[in-house]
């Protein structure tokens, strides 16, 4: 047999064996009640903690409160309805700047007062103006009919996704809070404990297993249902419960952070509030259901322009303590 024939046969076999995989926007997961209240908050007390991969002891000299879970689709829908009623946001066409190109997208948007601009290499200016908060795009987990936003029933307790940094920031500010800084987020995620010279690499401990968090190829419930990519899991899903859905069951490990926060590793990246000098990027923490497990380590971050939105990016808010 000639090598070329073998190559052709193998290629045909391979291409033939590739089964189509469903896209995230085409998935409708069953509703799963995790028993975790997304309206709950915890206080992170002042004090130092090991920050970053190299465990630099860093002091946070104030108490602050942080949400126990990511903001859910239902919470965001409520915000949109309230904000629409008060005129803080509006529905329409928004300019979305991507590098040197500007495109128009329909969705929800509002005002942002702009950011300091240093004119540094690769930095893009974020001027005061109207910005897209959430596009009306495929995969959106809420509907907009008759001037009312409604969370899709199967996604009510999933993390809100597909909102830009502006959309996440607007939610937190509307609630009287703000997005966490990277330092605040990491302290809430890993706590203050040091074991063998290192702070915790994951919110729940030193090792990661598929039942700890929702990440790429973690074989979670939705990966089993919808294929390798899976989907987001409801907030607080990894709390030690065994879920019975249809004929199958799935047991999770209790993966709360030392302060009792859920989903601080995996599920969705979370927008941070920092606006660093000389750059326009906004940072994200935590990794997502698209991420390999290494990106779930608490010090890993991701970044994108504040106009970026994705089915794997969500957020949670903080409030300054009393």
């Amino acid at each position: 047999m000639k090598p070329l024939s073998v190559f052709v046969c193998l290629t045909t076999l391979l291409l033939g064996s590739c089964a189509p995989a469903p896209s995230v926007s085409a998935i409708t997961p069953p509703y799963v009640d995790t028993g975790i209240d997304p309206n709950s908050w915890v206080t992170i007390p002042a004090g130092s903690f090991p920050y970053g991969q190299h465990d630099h002891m860093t002091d946070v000299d104030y108490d602050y409160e942080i949400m126990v879970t990511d903001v859910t689709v239902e919470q965001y829908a409520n915000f949109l309805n309230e904000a629409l009623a008060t005129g803080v946001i509006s529905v329409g066409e928004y300019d979305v700047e991507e590098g040197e190109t500007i495109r128009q997208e329909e969705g929800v948007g509002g005002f942002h007062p702009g950011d300091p601009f240093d004119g540094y290499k690769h930095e893009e200016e974020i001027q005061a103006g109207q910005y897209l908060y959430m596009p009306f795009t495929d995969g959106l987990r809420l509907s907009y009919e008759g001037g009312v936003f409604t969370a899709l029933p199967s996604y009510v307790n999933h993390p809100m996704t597909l909102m830009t940094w502006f959309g996440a920031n607007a939610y937190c500010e509307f609630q009287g809070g703000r997005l966490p800084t990277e330092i605040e987020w990491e302290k809430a995620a890993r706590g203050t404990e040091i074991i063998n010279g290192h702070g915790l690499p994951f919110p729940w401990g030193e090792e990661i297993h598929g039942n700890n968090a929702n990440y790429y190829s973690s074989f979670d419930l939705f990966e089993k249902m919808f294929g390798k990519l899976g989907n987001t899991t409801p907030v607080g899903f990894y709390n030690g419960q065994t879920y019975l859905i249809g004929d199958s069951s799935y047991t999770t490990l209790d993966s709360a952070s030392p302060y009792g926060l859920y989903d601080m590793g995996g599920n969705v990246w979370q927008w941070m509030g920092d606006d660093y000098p000389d750059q326009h990027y906004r940072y994200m923490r935590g990794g997502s259901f698209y991420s390999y497990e290494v990106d779930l380590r608490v010090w890993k971050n991701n970044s994108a322009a504040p106009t970026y939105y994705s089915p794997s990016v969500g957020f949670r808010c903080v409030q300054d303590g009393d």
Partner: protein
Amino acid sequence: MQLIKDRFDYLFRSTKGLTLVAIAMVALVTAIWGTLSGPMVEWGVRDITVNLLGLDLVQAEREGRIIMLYHTIAMTIIAIEVYFMTDMLPMKRHEQVTINATITVGYLTALIFGMLFGYFGHNFVFHGLFILGQSLVFFSGILLAAALWPWKKEYLLEADSPYAHTKKGVDLERLAFFVMVIATLLSATFGAVTGSYWGNGHETFLGEDLIRAPHKTALQKAIIGHLHIMLTLVAVALTLIVGRWMKFKGLLHRIAMPLMIVGTIIITAGALSVVWLPWAHTTIYVGSVFVMFAALLFVIFSWDKLIKEGTAHIEKPGFFQKMGALLRDPLKFGPGWQMVFMNFTVSGVGIFMAVKLDEIFRVWPHREERITLTGHWHILASLIATIILFYFADLMGLKGKARKWFGWLVIIMSDLAFASATIFSMKRLFVAESEQQALVNTLMLLMDVGLALVLIALAIFMGWRLYDLFRKDGRWSKELAAEKKTSAQSQIEEQQQRLKELQATLEETSQ
């Protein structure tokens, strides 16, 4: 006892044996450590490896472990290139023996103790031995530079030589090798000085994680410059090696060698000046143009040569006869082809990224840009490895159908994997995150199958050579005898030359 001694002589005193050992070491490391990432994790193989070997995988030390792994593999690849050079470039037998012995002890020490330190707990004796091993590799580089000194009388070329040379007869190919070795020593020093700050102000990082940080420290820039130039110089060395293998000469050689020399100097200066100069990238681009043009001339020469040799018996060969001649020997066609293919999967992607950085790649999340970057240089490193395999297989005397099967399998399957990896790394150009899974599944499968078949081809080849070692009169014994013969002849020539010099001195002093 003689049984072991003969085989030891073959494995550690002949070029073929030394290369075989080094490739076996890389293959072993790749086979074991390859189970710690990618689909092996998903299939649960990583956990088996970790438990079986008792690996100590502290999460915070992952980046450091990867850096140790890269260094140990790099030391071995450099050793292989050095074996090729000491074998193919004229030098004294004692120089060849000393250089090969030093680098062999060096890379093996660095590899064994580097991996022990990285993956089996932080015993600092291991780290010290890892550094010692690298120092020996460095020292062998100094010895190599001395042996290559192109201005030695005995290495000057005749005026009518078809190889590039100066008016005074300095062999420009030898000079290109020499410049590459000096540049490598300088660049290694750069990395060593920076690395010496480890634990004393410098913290381990992977270059691709820092790409968007607007302000990088001098240490960080030095390491980024170091890693880029080292891989580039490994590629330059290999281009020179395959040029020598293919007997690159004539007009194109005379143009290519000065370009390679100048390009190597400029690109090295550019990569190292990243620490101080904001416009260092411009220097790198200029140097790259010189080096890549020299490589292009080699490709033109080698393909033209294959066609001419393959159609020598035909008076007026047609297009298909020429193509047949070009593709007749995959091992000799492969190096040039992989260099051309590199333009689609590495250089082309790199240029596209540079041109569209702010417009496309910096609009993507950092993780996407990171995948493109890591894909880009992993492919380059793997392409280099395949070219080494072509030369290695030829050196080991692979013939007939086995030669064709091995050659084509490596070319087709590696290119399938690299093309898939390139598309994977650039997938955001064609598909949104939420719609990507079908494409990702297909590409991952093609990558895995492509790489697996290349590794299987290599494993069969290595298995054959291992089996051969157990045979009393295997190929190894003939290869050892041939190498001993060549060595004896070259030593006799050296002695005769030395005798002439001594007699001349005697005559001069007795007058």
